[in-house]
């Protein structure tokens, strides 16, 4: 089967993969994939500080004719219960969707659901 230009790649990234990277490595990985037109679903998203870092990196990477930024949608961190805190569990980022802004568009987001649409005609490179 030949790959068409309009194909859209969705990559589901496991928690283990994300946990094995430093913050800098996570941002490098995400930016590289998204600039290549891929949509990423991170099983475990980024911490708020990493999210701010990703926005900052994105702004530096914007090329007006080829890369206009990212669409990133996720939720705040899971707060551990009292019992979990006793056992040393920290806040954990929740699932996050990240893709190129010219390809992925958020339609609606509430506390339970993120609804997005793919803008056709801008597939993965």
């Amino acid at each position, binding site marked *: 089967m030949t790959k068409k230009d309009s194909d859209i790649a969705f990559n589901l990234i496991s928690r283990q993969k994300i946990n094995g990277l430093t913050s800098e490595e996570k941002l490098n990985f995400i930016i590289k994939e998204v600039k290549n037109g891929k949509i990423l679903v991170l099983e475990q998203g980024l911490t708020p500080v990493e999210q701010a870092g990703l*926005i900052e990196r*994105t702004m530096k990477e914007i090329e007006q004719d080829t890369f206009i*930024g990212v669409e990133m949608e996720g939720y705040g961190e899971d707060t551990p219960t009292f019992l979990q805190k006793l056992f040393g569990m920290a806040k954990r980022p929740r699932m996050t969707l990240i893709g190129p802004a010219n390809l992925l568009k958020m339609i609606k987001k509430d506390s339970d659901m993120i609804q997005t649409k793919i803008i056709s005609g801008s597939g993965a490179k």
Partner: protein
Amino acid sequence: MGIFRKGRLSDILQKLFGKKHAKIGIYGPPNVGKTTLANRILRDWTGDIMGSVSEIPHETRRAKWKKDVRVENGASSLLMDIVDTPGISTKVDFKEFMNTWGLTKEEAKIRAKEATEGVIESIKSLENVDGVLLVMDSTQDPFTQVNVTILGNLEARNLPVLIAANKIDMEDSSPATLKSAFPQHPVVPISALTGYNSDTLYSTMIKHFGKKRKKKWR
């Protein structure tokens, strides 16, 4: 004797009872009314304004400071340095400035370039504030990534945040949605444009930003 000197006594009282001078940042996504709110606060308490406003997103592209703004409510007051920051977004498309707002290609590209620099400046300035007035558009979905990211960063730093649910003069506004979305933070419905409910905003700012807090080590 020295302990009763005016300056020394006020220092001790401040340490015991909380802040009297705070650096407050006005943050939020583009076009939620940050500069309109900054202008409202300054006009009410200094007679000045912060900057120009526009319907075109990213009108504010450099952070602007106004020092020593005293906000009062009865016997209590708070002296603030206020910074109005460029809108934070995850994307900037110069074509939107051309197609939606009628800018020329050259104007649009310059604006887009300056906007990306403004977003970076906003994020960096989060390091230098004591508290944040997070402006949200009460006619829009509250769970935007920018709101989630800013709130997460402030919670990680244990910085106080006050949400201004702006544009309540508009028919489709729903400040109650914002309140239920972020129950852990105070939410004050306001119209920065008309000044509606600004007294409540000021009294909440004094109470909330004047509190004594421990900053988290990161």
